[in-house]
């Protein structure tokens, strides 16, 4: 299972999303490799990924992908991240 957390610059926000996604997966008892990347590198970073986590504003920049795009509103809300991840991959 591969999950990519995506932001505009590849520093900062995607890393926060990555850290909290790992916590949410722990809570769900699910094992996955979670990486952080930016939209400029999404084609490479998300190759083979099942899920892309990102913010509502960035969805349009992602382009074609086979991954499920999961939109997170509050990057610190573990309940939101866990329930959305669970319905995407559970």
């Amino acid at each position, binding site marked *: 299972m591969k999950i990519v957390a995506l*932001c*505009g*610059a*590849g*520093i*900062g*926000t995607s*890393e*926060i*999303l990555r*850290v*909290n996604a790992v*916590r949410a997966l722990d809570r769900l008892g699910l094992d996955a490799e979670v990486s952080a990347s930016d*939209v400029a590198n999404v084609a490479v970073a998300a190759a083979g990924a099942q899920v892309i986590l*990102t*913010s*509502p*504003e*960035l969805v349009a*920049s992602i382009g074609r992908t086979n991954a499920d795009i999961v939109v997170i*509103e*509050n*990057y*610190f*809300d*573990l309940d939101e991240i866990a329930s959305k991840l669970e319905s995407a991959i559970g």
Partner: protein
Amino acid sequence: MTFSIPPLDQLPDPAIALHATAADWRSAIRAAAEALTESGCSEPSYGDRMIALVEEYGPYIVIAPGLAMAHARPGPDVTAPGIVVVTLAEPVTFGHAYNDPVSVVLGLAATEADQHVAAVASLANLFNDESVIPALAAATSRDEVRRLLRAAHPPVSDSTPGEAS
């Protein structure tokens, strides 16, 4: 890896700006850029790049209700890694679908892409408690801000200690 951003509860005075006046989201980001410049982390052009990131991708930097994390890629205008905390006198609208208005702006400067990771993980510790953002916005002194930021560094941690170097 050296943990070169100081722990959040030890942020120096120039890295904390209280009740800054900002007419719009651009001036809110500029306030964070000024604090980064006064902290010796970046040149003023870094503020232009932080604004350009929002112009290019939208207000995705508003990552939680009331909280924006202004940042841009590493570049020659970043002289040292750092984080600043700016609270706004009046909340500002960024145009985010869910998380407006913003009352707290974090500014992040990184000199290389993964240098800030420990500091960013500590931000996750802090803001998993949703009461912290309004508490920061209401803080009336830098010491009060530092006291609130102490939650970013819990005494018992299951990850690599930041002060190991």
